[in-house]
């Protein structure tokens, strides 16, 4: 199966470039922070950490990964291989999702959360949203600076509302898909099925956009502005 090979290839690549090492460092830092926080803060703190980890990491790493592939011209090699754009997108998304879920499992376990399956599911879905957003942004840029400028507003949109929602769970705000993710992680979802469905719909839309963006990026490798 080509898709499995692609995922394994991406994991190998991420490992070689030290992404796993950085994740381990951050996890250790998070665990340390959890222990120095007072007991009463711990639950909210761990929710923010679990939510923000794929947010900060997935979004940022995806830019780094695609830029590295661009600069080493690996994308040219992939563009003349039988790999389909959607397979490329899936492999990137799944490979980063696996790390996010792993980190979140450690954090949830250390914090003694009881809704671990829900947390893991929410992490997986949230991670996909962030990596897909990152991938879409990364297909359009050529330097890390451009990438940071482009993703800064994304980080705000994705990060501020759920953080507010965690403390002030207003009724209107529950329709914002990423707030659903925060609700699932913090075990405060009013309607888990609806929250999961909302996230899935966002993911499907982003997959379609990411596939198009990837195709466009591959087609522009020939040097023609489209």
């Amino acid at each position, binding site marked *: 199966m*080509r898709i499995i*090979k*692609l995922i394994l*290839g991406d994991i*190998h*690549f991420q490992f*070689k*470039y030290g992404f796993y090492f950085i994740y381990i460092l951050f996890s250790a830092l998070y665990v340390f922070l959890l222990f120095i926080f007072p007991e009463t803060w711990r639950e909210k703190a761990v929710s923010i950490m679990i939510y923000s980890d794929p947010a900060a990491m997935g979004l940022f790493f995806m830019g780094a990964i695609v830029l590295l592939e661009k600069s*080493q*011209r*690996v994308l*040219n*090699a*992939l*563009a*003349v*291989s*039988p*790999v*389909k754009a959607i397979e490329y997108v899936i492999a990137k998304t799944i490979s980063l999702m696996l790390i996010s879920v792993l980190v979140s499992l450690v954090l949830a376990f250390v914090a003694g959360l009881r809704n671990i399956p829900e947390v893991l599911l929410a992490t997986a879905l949230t991670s996909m949203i962030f990596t897909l957003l990152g991938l879409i942004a990364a297909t359009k840029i050529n330097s890390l600076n451009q990438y940071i400028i482009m993703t800064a507003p994304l980080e705000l949109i994705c990060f501020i509302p759920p953080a507010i929602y965690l403390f002030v769970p207003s009724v209107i705000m529950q329709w914002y898909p990423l707030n659903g993710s925060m609700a699932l992680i913090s075990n405060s979802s009013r309607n888990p099925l609806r929250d999961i469905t909302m996230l899935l719909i966002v993911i499907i839309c982003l997959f379609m956009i990411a596939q198009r963006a990837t195709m466009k990026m591959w*087609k522009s*490798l*020939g*040097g*023609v502005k*489209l």
Partner: protein
Amino acid sequence: MLTVKNLSFSYSKKPFITCMNFHVERGEIFGFLGPSGAGKTTLQKILTGLITTYDGSVKLDGIECKEHDNHFYENIGVDFEYSTMYEKLTARQNLEFFSSLYAKQTVKIDEILADIGLQNDADKKVSDYSKGMKSRLNFLKALLHDPNILFLDEPTSGLDPANSQLMKDMILQQKAKGKTIFLTTHNMADATELCDRVAFIVNGGIKALDSPHNLIMRKGAAKVLYTYYDKHERLGECLLSQISEDNVLANLMKENRILSIHSSEPTLNDIFIEVTGRTLQ
């Protein structure tokens, strides 16, 4: 195998490739020659489906290049003019990864690494490779899935003579297996040695297209050049086919006074300069 009809393409508004026509048979080694910036790589990008905004028709193995699906690539191998490897992975890891993306995985990675002389560097990171090692590795990447059509963009550039010979032998082996091979090079000796036919590309157009032999023959006969001493050093010249009629040379020979003598056949180099020089005026 390849039919190009009325192909036109440009990166910008200014016309570049205009109304190009040619045909390549199965099993041929076909060379693209021409000065830097002439459009050789551009043409390869069109043939390999990386540029899809051309006009006219380009049919590779029956498939219109701009309408290809991903299956198209199971059958073609591309060696770019630059490295396309994951720098932090080893050569072997790179080849294993790229090989795993294809349906056909019959080529033994260790064997081809040995064929090109990289067996002892297979577990080095690509970032630690020299330029020539990288070109050889990239060439191998094109062979991984045993494709029927190969595109090689300056495969021997940056190689020492021994490695260049290894690679040329491998290219000829591929031809012997019935592969069709498209090749660009700036090395006229390589082109003469390898190519069944060559096209001279100048400013996006084909200025000459024939076998190297025919092109050379058309250029004219072989000459004999000799030097001798007569007050100061002098140069004599005659056609090889009329050597017996050159009395100066005959006398010099009788008197053992020739300082140097050599015959020179026209080469593809001369053709290159003629074909490309004329358009520079």
